[in-house]
């Protein structure tokens, strides 16, 4: 789960991570009041969406697609400018390199006091899969794309790892601050911030915290000027407060609906719908469809606990996608029994009036019974014994009209 910058900064503030004062707004009026309340000559007017690259993003009118403004983060020097920028952002569509061309409608703004920057850094905490511990990563090259820095000047990136049982070693954190070239008060503040962020990472079950830029102010203060925080969904059960931070408009509605049925669904751009048990097999099914010359319309794992109800929901979700011209069902029965899936497929297709070609491949538990049930039914369904045969069949069937 991801949250907005303004929410991340509230958590930073609670966790002892220094930020500048800011106010969350959802309208132009609120933005104007925020300017008065902040009482700062200069303020930043920041679009709040979950995708990155906001500063270099472009705002469009969501209806006409006319260009409204370049830059989703603006520095305002007067109340008039705050009004101008806020009205050019709220309700508009922001396209960044991370949103795709469809962009995101901006419903939230963050008005933040100005800050005299002397240098911009990068700081992140994340899980290092290979080291199996929390990695703290910093760079003297802040405010830019970190992947670019990693590629062009890898020596500018510094890393330390926390010991999962002992925690962060204080000499490591001091060395980390040294490697970023910080001295005196700034060095002390960075050490304090890294320790505070690590504590927050553990306490809140984060999967990532990224601050880009982290800044040194002209008076030497170390301040988190941006904040991107992701939480580990597996730990939701011990963090009920997360519900209040969730912005459903940032999530795919259909993916949430699928989740409620125990399905794992991701929409893609192709024309062949897939219904598969198991994440690895679901990906492999997509890959094989592509090998036979078509594109998968979705990833869909029905999971080990699938029922007739969830399989019907899966068909409905696949068919909501107008691009779907055919469906491949690929089940390797383990816990799931193919005959149960066969009966569910028949009932689901009757219930929703399936009108695209359907190929079913069964293997594993009760696959003979399952295939027999389908072949004996009056359902217009093709059966296959291998994944390759199934993929080839559905690709050919959907090509007939072309």
């Amino acid at each position, binding site marked *: 789960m991801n949250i907005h910058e303004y929410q991340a900064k509230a958590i930073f503030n609670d966790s002892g991570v220094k930020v500048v004062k800011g106010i969350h707004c959802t309208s132009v009026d609120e933005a104007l009041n925020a300017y008065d309340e902040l009482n700062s000559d200069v303020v930043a007017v920041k679009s709040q969406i979950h995708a990155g690259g906001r500063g270099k993003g472009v705002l469009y009118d969501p209806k006409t697609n006319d260009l409204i403004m370049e830059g989703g983060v603006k520095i305002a020097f007067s109340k008039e400018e705050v009004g101008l920028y806020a009205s050019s952002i709220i309700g508009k569509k922001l396209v960044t390199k991370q949103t795709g061309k469809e962009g995101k409608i901006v419903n939230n703004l963050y008005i933040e006091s100005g800050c005299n920057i002397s240098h911009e850094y990068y700081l992140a905490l994340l899980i290092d899969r290979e080291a*199996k511990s929390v990695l703290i990563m910093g760079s003297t090259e802040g405010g830019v794309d970190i992947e670019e820095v990693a590629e062009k000047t890898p020596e500018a990136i510094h890393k330390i790892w926390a010991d999962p049982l002992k925690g962060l070693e204080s000499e490591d954190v001091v060395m980390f601050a040294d490697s970023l070239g910080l001295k005196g008060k700034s060095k002390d503040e960075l050490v304090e911030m890294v320790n505070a962020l690590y504590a927050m990472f553990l306490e809140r079950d984060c999967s990532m915290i990224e601050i880009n830029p982290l800044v040194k102010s002209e008076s030497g203060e170390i301040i988190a000027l941006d904040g991107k925080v992701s939480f580990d969904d597996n730990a939701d059960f011990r963090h009920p407060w997360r519900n209040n931070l969730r912005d459903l408009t940032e999530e795919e509605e259909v993916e949430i609906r699928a989740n409620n049925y125990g399905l794992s669904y991701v929409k893609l751009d192709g024309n062949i719908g897939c219904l598969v048990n198991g994440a690895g097999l679901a990906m492999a099914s997509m890959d094989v469809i592509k090998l036979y010359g078509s594109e998968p319309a979705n990833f869909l794992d029905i999971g080990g606990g699938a029922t007739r109800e969830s399989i019907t929901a899966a068909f409905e979700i696949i068919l909501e996608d107008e691009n779907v011209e055919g469906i491949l069902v690929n089940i390797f029965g383990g816990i799931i029994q193919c005959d149960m899936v066969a009966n569910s497929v028949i009932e689901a297709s009757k219930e929703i009036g399936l009108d695209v070609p359907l190929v079913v491949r069964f293997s594993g538990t009760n696959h003979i019974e399952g295939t027999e049930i389908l072949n004996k039914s009056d359902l217009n369904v093709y059966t296959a014994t291998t994944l390759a045969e199934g993929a080839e069949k559905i690709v050919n069937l959907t090509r007939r009209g072309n």
Partner: protein
Amino acid sequence: MSIWVDENSKILIQGITGKQGTFHGTRMIEYNTNVVGGVTPGKGGQKLNFSGREITVYDSMQEAIARTGADVSVIYVPARFASAAIVEAANAFQENGGGLIVCITEGIPILDMVTAVANVKKCPDVRLIGPNCPGIITPRENGGCKVGIMPGFIHAKGRIGIVSKSGTLTYEAVAQTMSVGEGQSTCVGIGGDPVNGTGFIDCLQAFENDNQTEAIVLIGEIGGTAEEEAAEWASKNMSKPIVGFVAGSTAPPGKRMGHAGAIISGGKGTAEEKFAAFEKAGIYVARDPSEIGNVLIKALEDTGRK
């Protein structure tokens, strides 16, 4: 031989009185797996009947191991308690001559696994497989040793070792070996979580040292760099041929594909990179999982094993 489990392994089931523990415990016994007991805190002393066999429930791993001499534990405990079950098992095995822990549970918080894996590392005689995996199976003539949730009947004893991040895709690989007349020495599901115990390299090394295994099928998926590291390691250390497949060539970047670890992030962890690493390391690549059988035959023929 086979690796890590066989007909002599003595197996405990942690979470045996739960729905998963009961269901899969029964299937394990039906496959002739030597289940010697179970653990559910607070339910010690209960006697369960699994498919005609009486199974005793113990309150703790320490007690269960002391009473049964078990050397393997399989965990069907719910996600929020699973990492504690891993650590309990690790400490108990370490004090009693060592053992293997197989954690089936899906959805364990990642920081819980970071801590659990670090605790297991402190126990040099303990190995952890999983979590979020189908388990490990060594097929024999009549059933065998099935420690997990895979369907036993699709397997047969043979000379192919299988290691995979996936569940059902592992079964697909098993079916592929069967389709070309080959059986399996041991199949290991290492799981699809970003932080887990045993990795690809541990499995490859064990298969290399196992005299029953003559070739290996390795099934990876997008996310992380475990496949690349395994390929690099294999090119220097493996004499037996490996057939490799990676799921997720068509997965879009930045989207989690079911498994917590299956995500291309920052342009890293793509199937293409992994296939390229396989090819560079001399691994026999199957681009289509339905071709794993045929590629395996070629690998066996090329190396004079068929």
